């Protein structure tokens, strides 16, 4: 009997890569379904924070909350989705190193980069799942129904999330090289709030910061019901540029850090 290399069913081309993506997606789905308490508490935490903001804010400053509730909903939606996408990479890398599976992922014939891209796409899809559910609950609870045209919201949301994914790659790379950086992970979550709430209209240069332009355009699309194709082309160009730019920077940093870690011999350490 021979070793089965290059036998039937072996493919590291696009079809094999798609198969790997489906396997990674299935794995994530299985874990979400198999550990319902984990899953529910993850979703519950997202909602709980929103309830604190909404009900707490309404008790303290009812007019302010009422006037800005739609902005809060969109901002919170983007924030919760960003955290899911970002932490999936940064925490994910740390956990995989602890499990000893990071080195297994590295030794894939698809290449470490493409394997991590799959991980990222799965995280983004998961963030959309939670995002959709969170949005539904938020709109139901507040009684404010926003314009949710999938053709507008999905591409805008994906582009808006891209910088968070880039930052996730960056911190994932730092985690591979420097290990214990959980405190920095957590700090970033608060930093995201500032970026999403950045006063872009007042200080236009801020639109070049991660998340800021995506937040601005999502607000316009969902609060005012403006379709994607009716948004100013220049503003969309900034969104695409920041999305691609931060994602590429984060990925490059990740690549640099993993090579650095392998030079130092600390790839699978934790």
């Amino acid at each position, binding site marked *: 009997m021979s070793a089965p290399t290059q036998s039937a069913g072996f493919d590291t081309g696009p079809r094999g890569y798609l198969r*790997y993506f489906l396997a990674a997606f299935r794995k994530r789905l299985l874990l979400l379904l198999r550990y319902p308490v984990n899953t529910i508490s993850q979703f519950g935490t997202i909602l709980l924070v929103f309830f604190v903001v909404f009900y707490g804010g309404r008790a303290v400053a009812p007019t302010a909350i009422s006037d800005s509730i739609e902005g809060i909903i969109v901002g919170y939606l983007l924030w919760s989705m960003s955290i899911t996408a970002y932490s999936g990479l940064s925490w994910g890398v740390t956990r995989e190193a602890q499990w*000893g599976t990071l080195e*297994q992922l590295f030794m*894939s*014939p*698809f290449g470490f980069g493409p394997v991590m891209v799959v991980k990222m796409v799965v995280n983004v899809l998961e963030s959309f799942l939670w995002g959709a559910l969170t949005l539904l609950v938020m709109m139901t609870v507040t009684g404010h129904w926003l314009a949710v045209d999938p053709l507008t919201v999905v591409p805008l949301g994906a582009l808006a999330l891209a910088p968070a994914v880039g930052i996730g790659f960056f911190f994932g790379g730092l985690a591979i090289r420097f290990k214990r950086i959980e405190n920095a992970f957590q700090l970033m979550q608060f930093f995201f709030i500032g970026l999403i709430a950045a006063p872009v209209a007042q200080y236009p240069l801020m639109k070049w910061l991660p998340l800021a332009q995506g937040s601005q355009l999502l607000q316009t699309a969902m609060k005012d019901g403006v379709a994607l194709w009716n948004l100013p082309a220049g503003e969309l160009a900034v969104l695409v540029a920041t999305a691609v730019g931060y994602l590429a920077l984060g990925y490059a940093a990740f690549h640099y850090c993993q090579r650095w870690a*392998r030079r130092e*011999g600390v790839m699978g350490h934790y």
Partner: protein
Amino acid sequence: MSQATRRPSRSDTSSDGDPEAAGETVLAVDNLQKTYGDGDDAVHAVDGVSFAVDRGEVVGVLGPNGAGKTTTIKSILGLVVPTAGTVEIAGVNAADDARAVYQHVGAMLEGARNTYWRLTVAENLRFFAALGGRDPDVARDRHERLLEQFNLADKADEPVNDLSRGQKQKVSLAATLARGTDVVFLDEPTLGLDVEASVELRRELRRLADEEDITIVLSSHDMDVVESVCDRVVILADGQVIADDPVEDLVGVFETQAYRVTVEGQVPGGVRTQLTDSYHTENWDVLEDRTRFDVTLADGDTLHGVLDVLQAADRQLLDVDGLEPDLEDVFLDVTGTAPGSDADEGGDGE
């Protein structure tokens, strides 16, 4: 070894059991070096390691702690970037095309879980097959066979977390094999296993090489594993290869025993000379009312000779403790050679 050359490998041949595959070099490591730091602080973890492994061979990489085993293996696998040297797997230069190399090589690494404990055994195999570029549906029969071979068939649908340590180790190995590579690296595969599980795993490894022509490179502290599974042994010390021999040539290594002997009072100079001339003794420690020394012997029976010398000198024996033989000393004892020399350094007892 030339850069980026590609020789025919089993994967390039269409027929199974190709006789030309026998004796074909599937792994070639040439002057591999890994240095951490620089200047006076530089640590040469791997210092010019070269060896080759043929298809279907099982090669043990042995050495004391800090000998550079794990760094050598991780450098071959690309998990550590080597400072110098080349690695070719299945005719592909690893530095030129790591992705092509990973079509041929899988690894189970020491101290790592290597699998997802919250997934079931079968789910792990499917995931790692897909990660290795294989269609999990097409590989299903092979996975079932693997689980049967490892006595895990009835655990297929259980989360790995619920299994015993030995079973988890076997799942790691099965997940590594599920990728269907023809070269497998195993770093301390029996570490932490009980005797029964270890024996079972050894049998399985031997079968994989004999029946499936899988090439196995394993590192282990466990001499029994090496003796029972390996065709050949590469011994490392201080990051260098100090031996690369068929396992049967090193049979003495496996019989070697080491003891710490304590006798009452002091050992007269003549007796001590007699002992050091005839046996490999070291770590002489003269205390107020007793003398202690370590002796490494080619086999346990020779201990009687040491005790006879002490008895003849009227030294009362207080204690004899078994020690883990120092691999490098053992090797030097057995072969009477040292790296880069033919001198009989350390070959006292032989």
